[in-house]
């Protein structure tokens, strides 16, 4: 049975390739924490400008841009450090699956803002963000699926209690991301 150690290695290599070619695993946990902190700072600013709809929209857009930029750069760094490729068929699939619901939610949010349906803005964005995460979770770390579900639950909650929208923002985009980021950081490293 002189082949045996080789066989073990072969099977290990096969499993690794199967996993890495179907899931994007370089998602940075640290970027989750940063997204959460940015969202908390944003929530505080929002509280100060609570009566100015378009300032609120601007703050939310800034939070989104800052969070996505950090997610991109830190994941790129993580991929480089682990000597993995960042731009692969699976990372493209993940982004496509993330951005279809996310962009739909974004457009809907803008429509609601223009129409003055302000109380629908926060719930709809939370729900579509959650759906985007659930959708993308098939192509990345499985834990994203549960983060997505929680965002949907908070979105539905804020739909029922529209006055609590700022709490929905704080918990959904702030607290959940920090917890998620810390868990991922401990489990998979930066």
């Amino acid at each position: 049975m002189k082949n045996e150690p080789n066989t073990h290695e072969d099977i290990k290599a096969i499993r690794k390739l199967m996993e890495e070619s179907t899931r994007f695993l370089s998602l940075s946990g640290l970027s989750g924490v940063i997204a959460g902190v940015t969202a908390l700072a944003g929530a505080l600013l929002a509280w100060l400008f609570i009566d100015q709809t378009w300032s609120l929209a601007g703050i939310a857009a800034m939070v989104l841009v800052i969070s996505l930029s950090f997610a991109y750069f830190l994941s790129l760094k993580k991929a480089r450090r682990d000597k993995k490729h960042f731009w692969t068929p699976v990372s493209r699939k993940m982004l496509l699956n993330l951005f279809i619901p996310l962009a739909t939610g974004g457009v809907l949010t803008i429509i609601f803002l223009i129409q003055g349906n302000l109380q629908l803005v926060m719930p709809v964005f939370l729900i579509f963000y959650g759906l985007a995460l659930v959708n993308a979770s098939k192509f990345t770390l499985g834990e994203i699926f549960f983060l997505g579900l929680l965002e949907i639950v908070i979105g539905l909650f804020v739909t029922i209690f529209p006055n609590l929208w700022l709490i929905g923002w704080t918990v959904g985009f702030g607290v959940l991301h920090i917890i998620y980021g810390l868990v991922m950081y401990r489990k998979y490293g930066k």
Partner: protein
Amino acid sequence: MKDLIANLNKIFESRVRLGIMSVLTVNEKYDFNSLKETLDLTDGNLASHLKALEKEGMIAVEKQFIDRKPNTSYWATEKGRTAFSDHISALENLIRDS
């Protein structure tokens, strides 16, 4: 002993071919350059193994042009999937019984 290795397929004996089949059986399609990056191989090395697998009918090839650049994509055939899964089972049996 003979039974154990009866399902081991000669065509999959190289590490590179195992790698190619692993990626192609869990993905619908994969293009040449992505395959090259994933498996960390040179053009020539990858191409020769792909040709061998194609000749045995384990994988199929489609050549097309995207933005005037040639783009070759590969996928595992039904025959390839069955043969590869038998091969893996045989490998696993080999480990379990040794």
